[in-house]
Structure formats: structure tokens, C-alpha cells
């Protein structure tokens, strides 16, 4: 199971290292050496991500083609940008994968501070899109969303704190837990100020997942879950959230008749359009470019938050289930990497990334299926969006990085 991906038939599994003419291992043989990083890459994970990227790019193209044509713009605009994002993201993934493990720990505080500065900058010079003050506009039409990078900083930083243990300790101490909470509290608070409820929840669940897997006592886990429920209730019942946010979050539990506010009605309308588009796909879909709901622009934010509706309508159950399974593959490989990681840092890091992706995937797709509230969370590797793509790619790189440090033989 471990290395069938590593180019079968090219080299026998335990063959001795062949020497080159100069008596030194050739480049090819070094690459194929059983300790070579290339042989330790999780290719299943890599392939799943690449297939998702191709699928995502296709969907982004078909979701935007007509709208762009209608305004006289280049119908491939989003396609090109998405490919560019993927290219940059792959580069970041490679860097994240091969950077020295220890260096990563050393750089963690820097990553953290940079992202906090980014989040503060957003509050000062950011732009508002869809009610959330989350973007920094850079020259050249690029918009950056620091909260996406903050997710990366969070998993690295928390994993670092939770894996720093003194000899004999089997679990993080309570002081470590508090340190992690304090560490997370600063970016979390800044994100809540934007306000970006979806990302906040990603943070909360990711920290919870990492704490749990790091082995903190069950009391902490239970206590944090209870605190989370309490906080969630307070957020929904008090004036912390803007009314529109509250309406968006709660509208999916209401029937059409109960939706009293304009926002709730709009949200319900959006969700109904999303469900209609997905349901319209049927078993095998309308075919790429043939989704009437997609082409007619009934679904809002279709290349970003509601991208899954395009998959649902044009690719049908077959295509959208494949998409879900591909995402599931990432989670499966991530958990596998966590389980096999050599040290606690790797375990916690991988678990954090899995929790992050799992939460984001479930909330995003669940929202289009009408079983989760509407929040502005992108679907990893599928939704159009540079920052999200970069952060996701970095996370995949980190997973590979952990995998590279793992001995191949179990």
C-alpha cells in the first residue's frame, strides 16, 4: 500500500543502488532510492488534488462563461485566473512540502505574526465584499484574503505549541492548551471583527480537532465543546452578529413562510435556487455548459461559494458524488498521514488540516444542499479564489511534508 504509486515496474523494490559511470549514484537512481523524497510523496493525495483542480477550473469556466460574455468580457477570464492561482499554489505546495521540518518550527512565529499583521491591515485598508471586510486589494487586480493564510498559520503554530513536550509527558499540559487558545484568540478576534463568521468557525473547529488529537484530557475537550455551544448560542441570540448574518445563518431552518426579513428571504431564495440547480442535474447531469440554472444566472456567487451547484446541475449525481469522494480522498490521506506521522507535531498538524478541510467542505456543500447555514466559505480546490487556493495548496504541501518525514515502512 505504501509505494505502489512510485512508478511501478521502473525499479524493483529492494534493488541495490545502481552506480553510474563515475561511481556515484545517478540522478535517476537517487530519485528512486527508497529514502528519496520523491518516493515518499503521497501520490494519491497529490493526484486527488490535481484532479480536483482540473475539475474546479472546468466548473469555474462554465459557471462564469455566460456572465462574462454577457458583459462583453473575456469568457476565459476566470479560467485563466484560476489556472494562474493553481500554478502559484502548486509552487507554494512544493515549497511547503520540502522546507525543512525544523525550519518550519522556527518560522512558525514569523508566519503567525505576518498573518496577524495581514488581518489587522485588512481592517484598515481592506475592501468589503458581500458584507465581509475581508479583502486587501493589491495592484494588478489581485485581492488577497489574509484570513485564508491565517488558517495555515493557525495549524502550524498550534501544532508547534501542542507538540512541545517535556520528557515523559504524554499529553499537553493545561498551560499549553491555554497558550494555544490565547495564540488563536488574536487572529480569531480580528476575523470576527471583519466579520467573517464562516472562517471563525473554521478556526474554532480546527483548534478543537487539534487539541483533541494532541491528547489533551477529555475534560478539556468536553469543556471546549460546551464553551463552543454556549458561545454559538450567545452569538446567535445577542447582538454580536449583524442582523444580516444572523438571518443568513438561521434562515435555512425556517420555512418560506416564516422568513420575515428581507435577508432571510433572499437567503432562502438563494438556497432554493441552489437546490433547484442541483436537483435539476439528476443522475447524470445536464452536461457541461448546458445547465439552464447555471447559464441563466439564478444561483448567486456561482464561481465561488456556490460552485458546487454547477457540478450538481451539469455533472449530475455521478459527477458531484465523484467530487465529494475526491475531497473525501484528501481527508482520508490526511488522516492516514496523521496516523503514521513520526512525531506529535506531524500528527497534530495533519489532524488540524483535515479538520479544517472537512469542516469547510461539509459546510460549503451542505449549504448548497440546504442542510447547513449559508456562510461565505469556499470549497477547497474548486471555488475560484486566489488566497483560498494558495492556503489550501500550502496545507497540502504541509501534509506531504509530514509524509516525507515518515518512514515508508510501517
Amino acid at each position, binding site marked *: 500500500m505504501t509505494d505502489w504509486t512510485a512508478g511501478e515496474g521502473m525499479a524493483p523494490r529492494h534493488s541495490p543502488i545502481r552506480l553510474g559511470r563515475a561511481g556515484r549514484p545517478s540522478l535517476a537512481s537517487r530519485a528512486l532510492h527508497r529514502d528519496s523524497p520523491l518516493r515518499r510523496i503521497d501520490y494519491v493525495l497529490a493526484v486527488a488534488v490535481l484532479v480536483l483542480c482540473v475539475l474546479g477550473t472546468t466548473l469555474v469556466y462554465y459557471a462564469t462563461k455566460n456572465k462574462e460574455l454577457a458583459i462583453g468580457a473575456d469568457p476565459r477570464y476566470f479560467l485563466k485566473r484560476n489556472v494562474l492561482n493553481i500554478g502559484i499554489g502548486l509552487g507554494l505546495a512544493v515549497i511547503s512540502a520540502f522546507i525543512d521540518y525544523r525550519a518550519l518550527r522556527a518560522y512558525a512565529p514569523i508566519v503567525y505574526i505576518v498573518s496577524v499583521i495581514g488581518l489587522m491591515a485588512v481592517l484598515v485598508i481592506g475592501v468589503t465584499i458581500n458584507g465581509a471586510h475581508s479583502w486587501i486589494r493589491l495592484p494588478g487586480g489581485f485581492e488577497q484574503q489574509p484570513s485564508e493564510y491565517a488558517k495555515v498559520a493557525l495549524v502550524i503554530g498550534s501544532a508547534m505549541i501542542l507538540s512541545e513536550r517535556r520528557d515523559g509527558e504524554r499529553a499537553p499540559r493545561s498551560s499549553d492548551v491555554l497558550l494555544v487558545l490565547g495564540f488563536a484568540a488574536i487572529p480569531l478576534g480580528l476575523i470576527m471583527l471583519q466579520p467573517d463568521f464562516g472562517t471563525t468557525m473554521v478556526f474554532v473547529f480546527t483548534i478543537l480537532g487539534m487539541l483533541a488529537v494532541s491528547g489533551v484530557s*477529555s475534560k478539556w475537550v468536553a469543556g471546549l465543546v460546551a464553551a463552543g455551544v454556549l458561545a454559538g448560542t450567545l452569538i446567535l441570540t445577542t447582538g454580536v452578529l449583524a442582523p444580516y448574518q444572523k438571518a443568513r445563518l438561521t434562515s435555512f431552518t425556517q420555512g418560506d413562510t416564516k422568513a420575515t426579513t428581507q435577508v432571510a428571504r433572499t437567503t432562502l431564495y438563494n438556497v432554493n435556487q441552489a437546490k433547484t440547480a442541483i*436537483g435539476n442535474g439528476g443522475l447524470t447531469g445536464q452536461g457541461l455548459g448546458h445547465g439552464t440554472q447555471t447559464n441563466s444566472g439564478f444561483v448567486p456567487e456561482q464561481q465561488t461559494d456556490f460552485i458546487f451547484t454547477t457540478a450538481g446541475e451539469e455533472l449530475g449525481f455521478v459527477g458531484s458524488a465523484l467530487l465529494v469522494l475526491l475531497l473525501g480522498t484528501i481527508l482520508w490521506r490526511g488522516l492516514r498521514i496523521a496516523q503514521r*506521522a513520526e512525531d506529535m507535531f506531524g500528527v497534530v498538524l495533519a489532524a488540524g488540516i483535515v479538520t479544517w478541510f472537512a469542516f469547510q467542505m461539509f459546510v460549503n456543500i451542505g449549504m448548497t444542499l440546504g442542510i447547513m447555514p449559508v456562510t461565505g466559505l469556499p470549497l477547497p480546490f474548486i471555488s475560484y479564489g486566489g488566497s483560498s487556493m494558495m492556503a489550501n495548496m500550502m496545507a497540502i504541501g504541509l501534509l506531504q511534508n509530514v509524509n516525507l518525514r515518515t518512514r515508508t515502512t510501517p
Partner: protein
Amino acid sequence: MNDSSLRRLFVLRALVIGLVLTLLGRLWFLQVVSGNSYASAATSNTTRVVIDPATRGWILDDEGVPLVDNVSAYVVSIDRTVIQKQKDDGRAELALLAPLVSSGGKKLTAQDLADKIRLCDYVKIKPPRDVCWKGSPYQPVPVAEFASASTDQQQATALAVITAHAVDFPGVSVQLKAVRDYPATDDGVLPNTKLAAQALGYTGPITQDTIDKAKQKGDPLYADLPGDATIGQDGLEYYYDRMLRGQNGNRTVQVNAQGDVQGTVSTTAPRNGDHLVLNLDGKVQRAAEEALLKARTVYAPQAFQTATKGTDPNPQTGAAVVMTIDGRVLALANAPSYDPSVFLDGISQHDFDQFRAAGDSSPLLDRAATGEYAPGSTWKVVTGSALLSNGLVTQGTYKPCPPQFTVGNQIFKNFESESSPDVTLSGALIESCDTFFYPFGYDQWLADGQYGQSKTGKSPGAKEVFPKMARSFGFGKGTGIDLPGESPGLIVDRAERAAIWQANKKDYCAGAKSGKHPAGSYLQKLDQENCTDGWRYGAGDLTQFTIGQGSNILVTPLQLARAYVALANGGTLYQPTLAKAFVRPDGTVDKTIQPTVTGKVPVSGDNLAYIRQALYGVTHDDHGTAKGVFGDYPIRVAGKTGTAETQTFNDAGQEVDHSTSWFASFAPADDPKYVVVVAVPKSNQGALVAAPAVRDIYNAIFGVKDGHLVPHTGAFNGSDSRPKLLPCFRSDGRIQKPERGCSKADTIAPQAPLQPAPSAVLESPSAGTGTALGSVLDEPALPPDRRGTGSGRWAS
């Protein structure tokens, strides 16, 4: 890694599997289990049905002269979805548009426009602001119109402004549409007359109420109509609505989320309505309407001066019916009348109620078919038939004609208390001797068992020959004319009397007791009597019945005309029929309509001939009541006068007498072709008001000028019979008089009436109306004769 970490990783894995399975399950449910319903939701989401209205058929008289046709008008419509997307809900745009447009000749304000496009569902409608849009929210709402033939410079400029500056008027479209038109006729007597208004009826937008009721009844006539459909609301427009209306076409268009039309999915072409050719003749109709006017304004005031009878110098109302002896209705005239085009612009409920509340003088009433009056002496024809058929008299039996006849303590006087020597039935008809008939009524009452009748109306052995004969002549129920809402009239026999009493005794008895009327007043006593004895069929009732008076008898002018048709044609009872044929827009005949025979009166031909001869005596014998009018008339007219006395109560509760003036006739007397009946309520004697009016109508039918016959001036150009052929609808849009058969070349016409592509505008209802408008206005002008949907001009 410690155990708890492993355990929790395992939990995390289980959670992840759970989440993935949840998503897959939900996907399966949405896409595979309920995919079909979402697919249909998606279809309705992305398509809209736009109605292409069929052009309503014309209504023409028997010679092809249009009584109702269509003219084209530029109709300004507003797409509410576009208007409401604007920041100020389009208020600025409406304010810009308002000064340019008008509707029904009235200037519009921005508020008027806003009212017109609001949806009825969402507003509480209160007069006077009771205007709202009942139709589909996606159908552009027509708010104003420009007559296409208008030479009004101001209008032309306004139209140009709207169309040239389409960018300033998003969502506003201008379409060429067919609008109902009532060509006026004018010969100086009745200026600018719109003929036969009550018979034609009017059209108007369908109401939700109508749709709901049709759906409840499963009536396909209205149930599947769009909310903005125009339907016939009354008269022929109502009765033949389906044929006239045709079948709307529709286009299913694909729209995006903004409602912009992306393309057409399917198209069903409209099938335009049939033209309705009537038996009714415009010239006879005009003569009838003018005769009614003259009766009310000339003959009645004259009679008031000269005669002792009558309290009303200025009658308000009147009705005239002209029929052929085979049941075709040549004229159905009513006074007062009105111009049906007042309904074109969608009369508001408030105005409509006022129109209707005019009561006695309401012009909407089709008195000829719905007005119920006592027939007076015209009724003696029916009584005479009963007498002869039942052997109560023979053609030679003489009976006295005293000044009065007493039944118990009731005295029934002869007209003006006159008397004459003994007369036969013929003589009694000629002189209109009431006292000749009274004893037969009284004797029959005795023979039928006097009061010997139960409260439930059971009266074994009673023959009731007079009510029975009345029913045989078609009285007491509707004639079946092709009009909505005709009245059944009233023929009360013993059973009917008991039934009426059962239905009303509560009211009678309440009126007798309470302070509804002053104690001891006539009305109070009347209620008292009705309360206890109303079920009794009184001797006086039947006695009066024989001369067409009293509370047991009411007829409509149309019923009387039908009875006289039977008398004139030898006893065949017809269903009076206005429609002659339906002609398709291309000129081919869809359907011809023959009057239906509904029965035969149980009177021998010999006896009918005897009565006809007597009626000729009425107009020619020295004692004849109408000799003064018809004695020297060049056409041999036979008829019967009637002066029905009725009572009303004034505000003080006092009785006021009125006379309904009747004349019922046929001509020529020896070979009857036409029956003419005129009734003028609250006027004077039959011979003084109705009879001269009938003469005026015959003048027009036969062509009598100043007492001399000038045949070619007659309604049918000297031929004494109405046209047998249908008018020809020629391919150039003209209609030819039915003198000769239509040649094939005449009738093979392109699909007229035309519909100048409303699609050109609808194609892009929201995205810039500029080009769309241009395409409509640039449409090549229609040939002059067919401009619009054709006020087809009569060709020869």
C-alpha cells in the same frame, strides 16, 4: 503517539466518513429521488409564457356593416419587473412618462400610472384609487394608448418622444394592438349613434372572480385564460365570447434570473376570432331606435295633450323588437341607450356602479329581453286562442260588451267605460272590448273550483285554460334568444300562486305586523291580505288575466314578439335568434345558425287565420283601435294595441297610475314576413305612442316616405325580404354586400385580421426597448383599408 491521540484520530476518521456519507445521501435525495420535481421547478424557473392575444372577431349586421370592429391603437405598456428594479421604484420614470400619455382621453398622472401597474394581490383597493393590475406580474401592463389614426399633433409628438428616447423609459414598450371600436352612424335624427348597444354588450378585462368561478365549475371557457384577458361581459359579446375571442397564441420564452428574454422555446400562433354576422339589420335597428326616441319625445307628449289616459308626458324608457316570421331578430332596440366604448378603457367599479344605479333610466338594460311588463290588450290574442281552441266561443259567437263587469265587490271597467253592441271575438279584438273577455275569466275561475285549492297549489280538476295557453305561446319562461340574462316573465296559475306565497309569506306577514308601512295604509293592508290569503287564486286575478292585466302576468317585449311570430306564421314557435353565421377571418364560413323551432301552439290554422284577420281589422276597421295610424298606410299592417295599467307608489305611499303603451303587429297582413313590437312603459295609450312608433319602423323596412311606398328606400332595397346570403369578406379586407354569392377569389384572403407582430416588442421586454420600439414603428404602413385590425369598410 499516545492512545488517546489514536482514539481521537479514530473518532475524527469516523466523523469524516459520516460527513461524506451525509453529503452523498443528501445528494442522492436531491438529484435522484426528487430530481424530477426540481427539474420541473428549473423549467418553470427559466421559462415564461408570453401571451400573443388573438384578435377578436367583428360583429356585423346582415349586410356586412360592422357594428363592432377593431381599430389599431398604439398601446403603451409598462413592464413592472423592470420598473421596480429601479432605485426609486421607477417613480422618476413614471413622472417623466405621465405627461406624455393619456388613456380614454384622460390625462394621466404619475400616481395613475403607479396605480395601474401595482398588483391587486398586494394592495387594499379602496375607491377612488381602486385601480390595480389583475394579470400576471410578467405580462407588461397596458397603461395608455394612442389612437393610430389620431391626427392630434400633441399625441404624435408624445409618441415620438417615448419611442425615440427609449433609453429614458426602460421597461416601457409601445405595441400596435387591436382595440374594440363601435363605428358610429349618423343620419341627423340620432347623431353619432352606436347601434344596438345592449344587444352587442361590451368587453372588458376578465376578473379574478370570473376565473375562480369558472375553475370551480370546471368551465373551460374562462378557466384557462390569462389574468389580463379581455372577454365579453354582456350581450352578444358575452354569449358568443368563445367564437369571437378565438384562441390566444403563446410563446414560451427562456429568461434568465433578471427576467431578460434569452430566446424563444416554443410558439403557438394565435387563432383569431370568427366574425359574427347577425340577422340584425343596421337600418332596421336604426329605425327602431329612432322610433323609440320619437315615441318618447314626440308621440308621448302629444298623447299627453290629447288623451285623458296617462300621467307621464315624458317616458324614459322603451323597447322595440323586429323579427322575421321564421324567428330571426332584425332589431332589438332599447331606450335609453349608451355608447359601449365607455367600457373600453376598463371602467372603474365606481363608475360602473353609478351607471347601473340609474335604475329606471339605466341605459345598460336590454329591456326588450329583460324588461317585464303587463302586456295589456295585446294579450287578447292569446286569450282569444284559448277561447277558440277550448270551444268557449266559436268564430261566430256574439257576446255583450257592457261598460263594466262586476266580480263580487270588484268592478272591472271597460276601457274608458265604453260599451258597444254584442260582438264576436273578432269584434272584441278590433274594438279591444275588455268586458267581452272578463266573464270568460270569471266563469273559468268558477269552473276550476273557485278558491278550492290547497295552500300547496293542488287543485284537482282545474283546467286553467288561460295560463295553459299562455305557456303554449312561450310565456312564463325565457325565449332562448342568444343573449345572456333574459327574463322569464310571469304567468301565474294556481300552483304558481301558492308557490309565490310560500316563498314570500314571511315578508308579507312581517309587513302586516311591524311598522314597515303606516298602520292602515294601503300597503299595510295589502301585506295583511297577502299574509293570510295570498295563496288564494282570486276570481279577480283570472278575470284580469284575460285582458293582460293584474298581478298574474308579465311578459317581455321579446316574448310577445315571438308569440306574434307564431300567430303570423301559422303557429310555429321559434327561438329568437340574433346570430346568422360565423365567418372565419379568412372569409370562409365556419358555421351558419338557423333559428330553432321550439314548439307549435295548440291552435288550429283556421283559428289563427281568424285572429290574424281580426288584427287586420284593428288597423283597418272603422272601430279598429289603430285605424288612425294604419288605415291609410301603403303596407297592409295587422296588429293589436295595448294599454297596460300599472301602479307605482310615490314617496307618500299614494298610488300613481301609469300606462304601458304597446303595439304588436305583423306585415304584410295577408303574407306576413315581419313582426314588430314596441313597448313604451309609463307613457300612454297603445294607439297613440307605440303604434306610430311601429309605423315608423315599417317605414324603414318597406321604404315608406310621407305615407307613400318608395321601395328602393326600404331596408332591403325594395325586395321585401331580408338578405339570404352572407356578406363576402374580400381578400383586400373589404366586405361586400350579400347581393350575389361570393366568388372564390373574393374569400381566399390571407390570415386577416392582421396582428402587427407584437413579438417585436416583447422579445426584449427589459433590456433597452429602443430597438424593439423602432421595429414596431418602422413596420410598413398597413394598406389603408386594412389599417389595424381592420375597421373593414363596407364596399358597395
